[in-house]
């Protein structure tokens, strides 16, 4: 999804106006939007309001789901504005792309696109406040400075609070290109800031999508067609309708658009539990359709076969045949991974109220714009007539990009002519996903006598996200393998190929996306090659990066090497460990950030204990250190779940897993000690939500190899027998 990141060098547009009731409002348009709207209507993507009581509220169109955007961005505003941090809060803007610009939140891109514009807006607000104070005092603005929510007239030490100045500030001139602070002057950016919203969480007052209550609202539960492309064969709802409190049973046909329902039967009742109970009383038979034979065990075997034979060429450079012929060593290995489901703790939920010619939606979502488009199409109304209240998500990890659950609620609301809340049960959430691709990669690499990698054949086969938009795709398209030719390892002779892998279920973005399996394959084979060359992995990796002579990769190489060394140093890579223990290391560059992890394990028989994880991170300037650290800790937990345990299994076209007993995500008793180290970086800030997941699996399997001599090439390492 990196292509979605806009060029931050373009100009930001800022416009000031007065607030109703007095106060200053600044609208900020993102660079890309400014580009589109040059000379036309001003179109801000975020708003800063300064009220007469001194409160500052930032309205942000991006969607918070636990990743801390709602702290990092206000920190940037407050810092440049010289505002008091405790007076700044952030409010989630409603779904309105016209007002806020693209709101889809993913690809770890929020920080990238919004950081500079928000700083500029903060700096502009400060200058307008200073100008206002200078007017009041009839002095020159040069004699005034701003600090901690007040403007000070330096010679006389007179002060005026931001709140007092708000109204007058609103009519001052907008400074187009304010000077921004130097890094050394930052008060909030890069510091460990308390997250504003946490005090509401600990008393149970923060509400999520699933907590929405609307007067007159009905409650619904659903059971879905278990096989993609299947349809309803028969339905007997007599028993379900007989459950006290049941209002209606609604059949929802499959909607063949990427984010539409797979088809299901919903029960509407006067509370969620009655609806859930009645769904269980439905007697439903489904026709499986063309994917009725999907079986992930057989499919994975087929993917392996497809990458262990020639496939379709994607990219080539140098002379691979010659490199292989003259090789001193050759290593070849095949790595695989299974489907994953996002399983955020808050299952899919929304309230939809379809009215005459419009619809109102309350949803936990990563993309209100998609809701507007899908519902607009489905209901035959304009997207702008779909009003989306963006609710806080109880986790999302990519799942809440796709609004099939909202479209279903719309279908029900339309049918019963009332607002309805549809909450999926955990079972439906797990069985009706947009799964991370099952995957296989085969790498053959050659080395000379000094451990220089000379050739690299890389075949990958996985049902791609593109299949969601083009189900006829037989294999992952070339751009899904771009990572291979652009990888910062220095390899002169290379060929990449894409193996056959048609999709039999819906594939979707999952935190870190393809970087999960690319990171695993690259990190693993580097360790295998180092072993073969008789070198330690850190030295070997440095050499492999140093061999990259592509001038365009200079920055990537330097930053990769820096995180590698930092992780190695912090973990004490190479030190003597007790028998049965080992440290493994891996580096990965994704979403414009660089992360290396050193994982320290103890292996006793079948038991794998992860003791310590040292994460070295270069995500450019760190905006909120504590939040960034938390994101890494979370990435380790997710990395550990998917490396060790979690896998979605299909049999006869349908998902076999059903709840957390057979999709065993990591629990606290296995939590390692995670230490996060940031590279002091002047690069612009880049994302954190995703890149931390990528290096973990290989660092873990490399550590297991170091500890026990066993090499794991298939994830998860300990799949459940279900």
């Amino acid at each position, binding site marked *: 999804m990196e292509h979605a990141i806009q060029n931050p060098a373009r100009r930001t547009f800022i416009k000031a106006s007065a607030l109703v009731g007095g106060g200053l409002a600044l609208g900020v348009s993102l660079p890309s939007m400014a580009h589109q709207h040059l000379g036309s209507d001003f179109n801000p993507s975020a708003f800063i309001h300064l009220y007469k009581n001194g409160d500052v509220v930032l309205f942000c169109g991006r969607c918070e789901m*636990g990743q801390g955007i709602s702290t990092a961005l206000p920190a940037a505003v407050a810092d440049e504005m010289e505002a008091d941090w405790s007076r700044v809060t952030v409010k989630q803007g409603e779904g309105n792309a016209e007002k806020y610009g693209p709101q889809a939140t993913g690809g770890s891109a929020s920080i990238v696109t919004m950081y500079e514009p928000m700083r500029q807006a903060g700096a502009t607000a400060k200058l307008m406040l200073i100008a206002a104070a200078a007017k009041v005092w009839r002095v020159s603005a040069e004699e005034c400075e701003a600090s901690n929510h007040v403007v000070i007239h330096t010679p006389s030490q007179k002060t005026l609070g931001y709140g007092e100045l708000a109204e007058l500030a609103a009519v001052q001139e907008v400074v187009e290109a304010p000077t921004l602070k130097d890094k050394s002057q930052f008060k909030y950016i890069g510091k460990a800031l308390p997250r504003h919203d946490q005090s509401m*969480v600990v008393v149970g007052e923060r509400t999520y999508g699933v907590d929405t209550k609307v007067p007159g609202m009905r409650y619904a539960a659903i059971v879905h067609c278990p096989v993609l492309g299947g349809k309803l064969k028969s339905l007997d709802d007599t028993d379900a309708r007989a459950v006290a409190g049941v209002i209606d049973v609604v059949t929802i046909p499959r909607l063949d658009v990427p984010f539409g329902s797979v088809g299901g039967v919903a029960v509407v009742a006067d509370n969620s*539990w009655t609806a859930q109970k009645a769904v269980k009383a439905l007697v439903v038979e489904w026709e499986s359709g063309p994917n009725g034979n999907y079986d992930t065990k057989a499919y994975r075997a087929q993917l392996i076969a497809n990458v262990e034979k020639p496939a379709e060429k994607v990219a080539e450079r140098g002379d691979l045949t010659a490199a292989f012929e003259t090789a001193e060593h050759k290593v070849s290995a095949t790595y695989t991974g299974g489907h994953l489901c996002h399983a*955020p*703790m808050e299952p899919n939920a929304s309230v939809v109220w379809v009215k005459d010619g419009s619809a109102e939606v309350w949803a936990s979502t990563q993309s209100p714009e998609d809701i507007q488009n899908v519902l607009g199409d489905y209901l035959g109304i304009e997207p702008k007539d779909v009003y989306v209240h963006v609710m806080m998500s109880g986790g999302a990890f990519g799942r809440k990009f796709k609004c099939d659950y909202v479209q279903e609620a719309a279908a029900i609301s339309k049918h019963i002519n009332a607002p309805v809340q549809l909450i999926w049960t*955990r079972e439906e959430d797990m069985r009706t996903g947009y799964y991370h691709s099952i995957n296989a990669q085969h790498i053959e690499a050659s080395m000379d006598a000094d451990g220089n990698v000379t050739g690299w054949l890389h075949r990958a086969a996985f049902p791609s996200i593109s299949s969601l938009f083009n189900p006829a795709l037989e294999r992952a398209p070339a751009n899904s393998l771009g990572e291979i030719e652009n990888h910062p390892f220095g390899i002169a002779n290379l060929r990449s190929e894409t193996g056959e892998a048609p999709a039999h279920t819906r594939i979707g973005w999952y935190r870190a996306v393809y970087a999960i399996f690319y990171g695993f394959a690259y990190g693993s084979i580097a360790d295998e090659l180092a072993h073969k060359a008789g070198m330690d992995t850190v030295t070997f990796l440095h050499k492999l990066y140093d061999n990259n002579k592509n001038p365009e990769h200079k920055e990537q190489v330097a930053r990769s090497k820096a995180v590698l060394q930092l992780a190695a140093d912090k973990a004490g890579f190479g030190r003597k460990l007790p028998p049965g223990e080992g440290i493994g290391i891996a580096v990965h560059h994704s979403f414009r950030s660089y992360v290396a992890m050193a994982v320290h394990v103890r292996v006793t028989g079948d038991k794998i204990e992860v003791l310590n994880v040292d994460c070295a991170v270069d995500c450019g300037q760190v905006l909120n250190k504590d939040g960034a650290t938390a994101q890494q800790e979370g990435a380790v937990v997710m990395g550990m779940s998917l490396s060790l345990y979690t896998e979605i299994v299909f049999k006869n076209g349908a998902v076999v897993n059903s709840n*957390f007993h057979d999709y065993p*995500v990591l629990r606290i008793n296995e939590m390692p000690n995670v230490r996060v180290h940031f590279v002091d970086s002047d690069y612009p800030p880049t994302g954190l939500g995703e890149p931390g997941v990528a290096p973990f699996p290989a660092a873990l399997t490399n550590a297991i190899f170091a500890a026990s001599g066993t090499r794991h090439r298939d994830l998860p390492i300990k799949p459940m027998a279900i």
Partner: protein
Amino acid sequence: MSSVTINGKEYPIDVAPDMPLLWFLRDRLELTGTKFGCGSGLCGACTVHIDGTATRSCVMPISAVAGRSITTIEGLSENGDHPVQKAWLKHQVPQCGYCQAGQIMNAASFLANNKQPSEQDIEAAMQGNICRCGTYQRIKLAIADAADELAKEV
């Protein structure tokens, strides 16, 4: 009609007897601080106290708690100042926050019974509470802190 006390207030049980306490709280009383995560006793998101003991409300029929006293996250403390809540803020535990009501309720009940927990005790007690955002490291630190705080209070 039988009744149940929730956060100090008495409510008549005017729903089907097999409705789980979770849904009585969420849909009948619209007390939504207690969360639905799995519905099967597997994740801990729905944890409340029944007569002081941490219990999964998603698998507890309302009829089984008639006459008993329930505390939810909204009623854990008067001003959000229970030592566990304070420790949670100090360590900035929540990410999305969705699992945290359950985590806090479980931790509070556990600490009431174990004044000097070891790391293993904490892990064993908190194993039933899943956090998909991965806040476990901070939960462990926060509970250890809260234990120290509680020890001082006595």
